[in-house]
């Protein structure tokens, strides 16, 4: 699996950069080493949205990617402990009221809690919010859920304050993350299983090849769909895609000729 770690602040990212030996890629702004990448999103929903959009179009294989948002959060005074890390099982967007529920399928030993994503930092309204409060998670879930199944969206938050601090810069976020780095590492490790990846039949190169054939032969829409459908059947039953190059070498001179060849292809793929 590939991992994309998301933090709001550079200080939150530092312990992760060190332990995974991540190096900054100037082109993408991602910190990368092997199968782990890290993106610093900035604070707040707007900055996060803009930053995430900038990487959506990168050629990342989202079907094989786990997103893990790691960061500090304000915690409800009576229910949370400063320095403790929590696994988020419900995210509420304070502005829209939308609720996001990750699928938690993998074992972990953390306490689970609800997180509310707010527009502005909370310094004196602690009674209004239950659980934890951050400023990015709902945006991350909402945006990535178009690309990634919700069992591959993970949110880990470490309580930095009880929503009573006026200037967040006074928080030693780096140290809070550093103290939990081993647990974070173990959680990442537990998600490193192929069981979580998307199951595809034809890969991109195979689909592109079939599309190329369709264009060359000017197949009808129905024929193009049938070609992919039957190729999937063939690969699923035989383990590999059939080499159809023989049929597509020439160019048909008429629709009748095309249809005749296509019938042969269908017969071949159905065997």
């Amino acid at each position: 699996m590939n991992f994309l770690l998301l933090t709001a602040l550079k200080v939150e990212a530092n312990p992760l950069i060190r332990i995974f030996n991540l190096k900054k890629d100037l082109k993408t702004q991602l910190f990368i080493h092997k199968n782990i990448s890290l993106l610093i999103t900035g604070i707040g929903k707007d900055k996060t949205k803009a930053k995430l959009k900038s990487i959506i179009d990168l050629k990342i294989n989202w079907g094989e990617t786990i997103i893990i948002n790691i960061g500090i959060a304000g915690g409800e005074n009576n229910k949370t402990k400063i320095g403790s890390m929590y696994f988020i099982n419900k995210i509420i967007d304070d502005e829209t009221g939308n609720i996001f529920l990750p699928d938690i399928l993998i074992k972990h030993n953390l306490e689970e809690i609800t997180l509310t994503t707010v527009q502005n930092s909370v310094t004196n309204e602690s009674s209004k919010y239950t659980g934890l409060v951050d400023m990015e998670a709902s945006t991350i879930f909402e945006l990535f859920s178009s690309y990634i199944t919700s069992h591959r969206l993970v949110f880990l938050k470490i309580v930095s304050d009880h929503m009573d601090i006026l200037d967040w810069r006074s928080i030693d976020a780096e140290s809070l993350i550093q103290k939990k780095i081993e647990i974070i590492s173990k959680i990442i490790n537990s998600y490193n299983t192929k069981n979580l990846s998307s199951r595809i039949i034809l890969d991109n190169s195979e689909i592109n090849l079939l599309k190329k054939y369709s264009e060359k032969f000017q197949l009808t829409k129905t024929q193009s769909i049938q070609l992919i459908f039957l190729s999937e059947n063939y690969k699923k039953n035989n383990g590999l895609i059939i080499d159809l190059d023989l049929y597509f070498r020439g160019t048909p001179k008429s629709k009748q000729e095309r249809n005749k060849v296509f019938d042969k292809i269908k017969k071949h793929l159905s065997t």
Partner: protein
Amino acid sequence: MIKSKNTFLPDFSHIYVESEAKKYNLTRDCLERFPNARIVEISDYKSFFNKKSQDFQTQKKSIKLILAVKKPPFIYKSTDILQDGGFKNFYYNTPILNCLYNCDYCFLQGMYSSANIVVFVNQNDLEDAVEKELLIRAFPREPLVLSISYNTDLMAFENILPITRSWINFANKKSDLIIEVRTKSSLFSSLSDLKPSNKIIFSWTLSPERIVRMNEFDTPTLERRLSSIQLAISKGWKIRLCFDPVIIYDNWEEDYSNLLNKIINSLEKKNIYDITVGVFRMGRDYFQRIRKTNPDSLEYYKNYIDENKIMTISQEERDNVKTLFTNKLRDYISEDKIHFWI
């Protein structure tokens, strides 16, 4: 980084509870049954069950439970694909959505985007709806037949929540109501203390052991199902046998012949209410949706025909199924008691 071993949470590690559902007895019973489950309160079960970006087969590795309050309708008239067993007033309801089992030919994978299980805790509303429907059914001289296991295997759930038992008790108090409990479960023992009633049809789906192993994941073996049927028969219950779907593969005739021989030799025919036989058939939309998720099963990558938006096997194969079952069962049960859905 080392590759992890299987680290999936056990089924029902999490229970999602609708705020409205908290006050119901079934909710209380369920939470008591799973004291270590993590409870997540939600306002509407659909926000979890119907959310986008779900992976049915991955979720099957760690199924979550959702406790919700069902909104109307509480009862549905039968569909064309659902077998009505020859009854005119045939209905189904949905006390539970989704199933503990994972049969690869099951339409539930196409019907729902989630593999998680929804239990509707307002049992009384479902019962009230049946009472009302009893009064306005289209054929008043015929009983109302209600399938309670259409979108689930309710008996498989009996050790978790005794919902089948509740429905049996309900049916026994109502005239003109017959309940069909379709199952692959071997949990009849949990109901064996009940007095036999001709208002209940227990319908066991049976398949050759090869199909149980290859296609009916997480279900009891054929032997365990047969033992459960034998227990039910010994207690005086009448049983419907379902061979649905009959799966076609090399040597299917031999396997199904052996299965039928075994049944003929082990289940006394006087205790068999009737027999239904069906083949693989699925609405095209569900079929395509399941296919897209690339399940491990090969069932969705065979050469089916599309017959009025229903994906099914060829007419010749259907005729072969009918011939085999008719010939094998001829001396076991009268022809009018065999219902073919092919």
